[in-house]
């Protein structure tokens, strides 16, 4: 199955990007001139160039981290081109021109037709025209004062907001990949919810990614002012392929007093073929700052793709009574590797955090949960609950749990539970003996396993994500 999946993921790109784009690609390699070029091409203000250069100089002093439980050949950072003009996907005239395997995947996932068209690069018809959808969307948001645009637009139109918050949660020198991102990021999303505003709809990157490719060094910044609320959706269930192997994104969230940010991710990037060749390395820094009292940040992620996933969406619980949550499903198959988890840094009094992590390993894959719960000296009465469950499919996959707990305040309460289970032959036989085939059986067991996380996803997303897990596991059992 995965060979088929791989083909279909590759497919749209075999016909390639138009050739004249090549002329607007920066030469390979990274130095201060490259960074000046990026900044100039994007017509950036001086302060942002300084931000990039500072990050770059810091990056030069840093070493690539080796502590994750993943293996990959050494990356040649001078072998990458760090700037290319926005790419456009080839336009097709109807769904009939789309690869039948890709169509089958869409049908299995239950992706609505107009989204299928947009994702496959079919020129969409008048009714579902993505431009008009985007326009309607933007109009509704503007009415309540919500800003949702690309990072480039934000730098141009709202420089004071970007300057105030960019790097305030993930500083330029935070870690090797965050420093690299800060130096060379090309675009990403910006979102600002003003004081007291409850964002009237789920904000989804889907409405942005079709018009432009955000590239391999994506930068996202979300700011929720006092009493604001936003639910943000990143990614989609449809397979995503990119010619860039290394992806190092940075996501920063800031929640002020009583603000709430809910950030959901479904990631289905190309994972490489069955022998592990060619998949994407997803090395991401995601962090939220609960700056205000009573604020809340909730991360939900469903990670199914990439050859290597290396990410720890984290919460810094600075404001009193602030709440951090992390709900994760990480599925690995074949030779995929995932080292993912979270960090909950309790700084303020009476802060609370909750971690629910579900790892599913199939094939010969390796899936690690790595999590830090830190209770600072001033975090009076802080509380954490962590639950890390691993599910193994077959006998050649691996699961690990690396919990780090540091407590510097004796009023704190920290709980950690971990389980490992295996889908047994006898369980599958029980289903079969009731007329249920293996695939449906595995899907039902998996859905039961991930239930606590999926209930955190927006409804229609949860349904798609459930089908996605089934699709990713086709052929894993039996």
């Amino acid at each position, binding site marked *: 199955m995965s060979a088929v999946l791989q083909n279909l993921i590759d497919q749209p790109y075999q016909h390639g990007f138009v050739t004249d784009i090549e002329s607007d690609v920066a030469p390979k390699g990274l130095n201060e001139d490259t960074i000046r070029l990026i900044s100039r091409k994007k017509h950036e203000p001086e302060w942002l160039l300084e931000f990039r250069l500072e990050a770059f100089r810091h990056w030069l002093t840093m070493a690539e981290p080796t502590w994750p439980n993943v293996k990959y050949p050494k990356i040649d950072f001078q072998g990458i081109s760090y700037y290319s003009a926005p790419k456009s996907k080839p336009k097709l005239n109807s769904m009939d021109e789309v690869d039948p395997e890709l169509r089958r995947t869409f049908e299995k996932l239950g992706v609505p037709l107009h989204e299928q068209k947009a994702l496959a690069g079919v020129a969409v018809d008048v009714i579902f025209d993505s431009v008009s959808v985007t326009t309607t969307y933007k109009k509704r948001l503007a009415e309540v004062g919500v800003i949702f645009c690309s990072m480039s637009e934000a730098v141009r139109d709202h420089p004071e907001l970007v300057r105030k918050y960019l790097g305030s949660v993930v500083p330029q020198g935070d870690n090797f990949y965050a420093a690299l991102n800060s130096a060379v990021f090309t675009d990403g999303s910006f979102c600002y919810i003003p004081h007291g505003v409850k964002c009237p709809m789920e904000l989804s990157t889907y409405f942005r990614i079709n018009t432009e490719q955000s590239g391999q060094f994506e930068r996202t910044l979300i700011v929720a002012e006092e009493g604001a609320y936003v639910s943000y959706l990143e990614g989609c269930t449809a397979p995503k392929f990119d010619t860039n192997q290394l992806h190092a994104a940075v996501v920063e969230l800031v929640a002020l007093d009583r603000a709430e940010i809910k950030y959901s991710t479904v990631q289905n990037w190309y994972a490489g073929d069955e022998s592990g060749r060619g998949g994407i390395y997803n090395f991401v820094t995601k962090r939220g700052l609960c700056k205000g009292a009573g604020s809340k940040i909730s991360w939900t992620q469903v990670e199914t793709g990439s050859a290597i996933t290396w990410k720890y969406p984290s919460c810094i619980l600075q404001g009193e009574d602030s709440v951090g949550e992390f709900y994760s499903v990480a599925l690995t198959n074949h030779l995929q590797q995932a080292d993912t988890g979270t960090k909950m840094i309790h700084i303020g009094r009476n802060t609370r955090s909750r971690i629910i992590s579900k790892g599913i390993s199939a094939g010969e894959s390796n899936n690690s949960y790595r999590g830090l719960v830190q209770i600072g000296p001033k975090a009076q009465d802080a509380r954490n609950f962590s639950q890390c469950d691993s599910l193994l499919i077959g006998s050649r996959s691996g699961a690990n749990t690396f919990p780090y707990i540091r407590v510097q305040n004796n009023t704190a309460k920290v709980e950690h539970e971990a389980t490992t289970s295996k889908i047994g032959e006898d369980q599958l036989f*029980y*289903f*079969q003996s*009731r007329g249920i*085939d293996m695939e*449906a059986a595995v899907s039902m067991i998996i859905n039961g*396993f991930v*239930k606590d996380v999926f209930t955190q996803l927006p409804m229609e997303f949860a349904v798609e994500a459930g089908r996605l897990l089934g699709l990713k596991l086709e052929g894993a059992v039996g």
Partner: protein
Amino acid sequence: MIRRGAKVLLDIRNLRARVAGVELLKGIDLTVRAGEVHAIMGPNGSGKSTFAKVLVGHSAYQVTSGEALFDGANLFALPAEERARRGLFLGFQYPVEIPGVANAQFLRLAYNTVQSARGREELDPIEFDDFVREKMKPLAIDPSFLGRSVNEGFSGGEKKRNEILQMALLEPQLAFLDETDSGLDIDTLRVVANGVNELLTADNAVVLVTHYQRLLNYIVPDYVHVMDSGRIVKTGDRALALELERRGYDWVGTAAAAPAS
């Protein structure tokens, strides 16, 4: 009830099977017709449970020779789920626990899968809820059981009742009940046995695999077979079960050694 000319549901000829290279079934012949109740008795390790699992298609067991026709089809050519859809059922001796999967969902998926394979109507969750509750009543199953994970934390009696509930939902033509009576107190045994009796019609049949005669006081067999070392060594009627209870199994093995050749 034995009826001359009743439809043959299962016809097994010289069945041999092995697990991990060890032959456990050494030539079994058995014919089951619609309307009949069979009991298979025998000492521990005689191959009773193996026989049941081989018939429903457990992948750990390998059929090495012989054939089985189920409702006219070559049973061993069908995958396990297909056998179930065509009306073969096994009530497990030790039903496996499936944490995280709600019983109600599991039961509905099984029911709808089998219904759809038989070209019958499927039920949505609300319709199914009413339907399954009706089926639970005669088995005295508490409604809270629908929200629990499949068999997880169930008592022995609850697990066995869940098996009979599944039998009631899936309406098999032929049900093998593997030691459904073991570990049950006398009240539960009566409830479970009544549940089975309620499901028996002139068109289906049941094969009880049991150690003890006492179940047969409630579900009266037409045939009693004694298994030993992977073979059926003696077949009789209900009187045979009573005799086995009085005399044990030893005499059967010796008495049957010659004709079994």
